[in-house]
């Protein structure tokens, strides 16, 4: 993929403002701050996917560079089906009489396929072979049992006892800024980073309010364009959405 290095963006901005190399580190600092901040909201190459092993006490250790969850999924054929996050799982360790970590007792056992079929795909025994719901729900409330939560104190994922997968696939956000290789970004981000640098430089140099506000407006406009480019929707996606909305109706 075509990328643009932060080094080049900083040099471009220096050229824009007619400044020599002596301003490089200040500008690079602003550029790195901007990239770090953008990466929390946009995929700047900082969305990672890893497979984590589930311990016998129903936890998985988060990667060291983990910032936040995108999703935790179980493998189902060629697809990844996301597990559900519930906030009331007990984050304290449960230990046996010898102090070993053990899972909390399960509320009830669950059949793996049934859980996926019913709670994650909404189908299974309540549908016929053509995918039509056949009734007989009798007010049954959905009760997901393959759930997780995040234990931020111990940097672990906590799973419900009934989650019987031995591996989960974690997709997570990390920082886009590297301290061991030169940073590169999508060309879409070039302008927004450049404008951010100019805005912050104007602020740091004690420019007049008018000059700073102009720089700020430039940055906000560039960010709008960037956001639109990063979240573009093409014809194929629209068609796909319409097709997904066309399906069989309930038989009443």
């Amino acid at each position: 993929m075509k990328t643009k290095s932060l080094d080049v963006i900083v040099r471009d901005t220096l050229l824009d403002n007619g400044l020599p190399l002596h301003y490089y580190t200040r500008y690079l600092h602003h550029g790195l701050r901007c990239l770090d901040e953008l990466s929390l909201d946009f995929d700047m190459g900082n969305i990672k996917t890893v497979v984590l092993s589930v311990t016998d006490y129903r936890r998985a250790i988060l990667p060291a560079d983990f910032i936040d969850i995108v999703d935790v999924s179980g493998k189902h054929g060629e697809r990844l089906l996301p597990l559900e996050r519930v906030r009331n799982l007990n984050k304290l360790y449960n230990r046996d009489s010898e102090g070993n970590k053990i899972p909390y007792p399960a509320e009830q056992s669950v059949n793996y396929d049934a859980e996926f079929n019913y709670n994650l795909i909404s189908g299974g025994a309540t549908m016929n072979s053509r995918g039509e719901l056949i009734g007989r729900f009798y007010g049954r409330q959905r009760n997901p049992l393959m759930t997780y939560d995040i234990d931020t104190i111990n940097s672990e994922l906590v799973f419900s006892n009934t989650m019987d997968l031995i591996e989960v696939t974690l997709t997570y956000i990390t920082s886009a800024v590297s301290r061991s290789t030169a940073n590169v970004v999508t060309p879409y981000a070039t302008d927004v980073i450049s404008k951010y640098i100019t805005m912050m430089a104007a602020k740091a140099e004690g420019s007049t309010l008018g000059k700073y506000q102009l720089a700020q407006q430039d940055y906000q406009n560039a960010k709008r364009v960037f956001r639109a480019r990063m979240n573009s929707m093409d014809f194929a996606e629209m068609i796909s959405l319409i097709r997904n909305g066309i399906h069989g109706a309930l038989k009443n």
Partner: protein
Amino acid sequence: MTKKILAEQIQRLYARFIDKENPSDIIDTREIILFIEQSLNKVLKLQVAESFKAGMIDVPKCNLIEYTAAVTADSGNNRAYITLPVIPLTLPMNMGIWSIAAATGAMNPYIPIPAQDVLVFQGANLSYLEGRIGYYVQGRRVYFTKNITLTANGTVTSVIVNLLTMDLSQFGDNDLLPISPEVESTIIADVLETISNGRVSQAEVASKQQ
């Protein structure tokens, strides 16, 4: 313009100032040459400061003097340094040191780092400098952020330093000075003002006596 021509002109002007009718070489040219050297650096700094004030970051390129400096390793601190051959002008962002590059990498200069930032950015994302090597100034020494004498960092034993200064010691009395023509009259006026400060001309003395 050479130092000698400038000095002689100042000498003549000064002599006429003392006694318009009988010019003489009453003041030693060696003294005037020292004044010229001092004045040139003063005028140079004023020139640069005025351009900065006008919002332009620019330096008079004809005053950039190129030196070659030997690199010494400071292995204990994983860095290297050079000793500046002369002290450059004190300008914002250390712009008196215009550029430093390896002898074989003139178009790929090292990154200047403001001395006050060096200790602050340790541990921050900026410290990596996108894989580049930077330098910062401490007194007469310029330190590089890596030991550039090592093979991994280019095995650099000497660097080319471009300094904004008027190191007139390297120019003989009859060598052409690297100054812009518009500076010459400013230098003459400045030196004359300095050496005639507090004095009165013979003509004035005579008129007062009458």
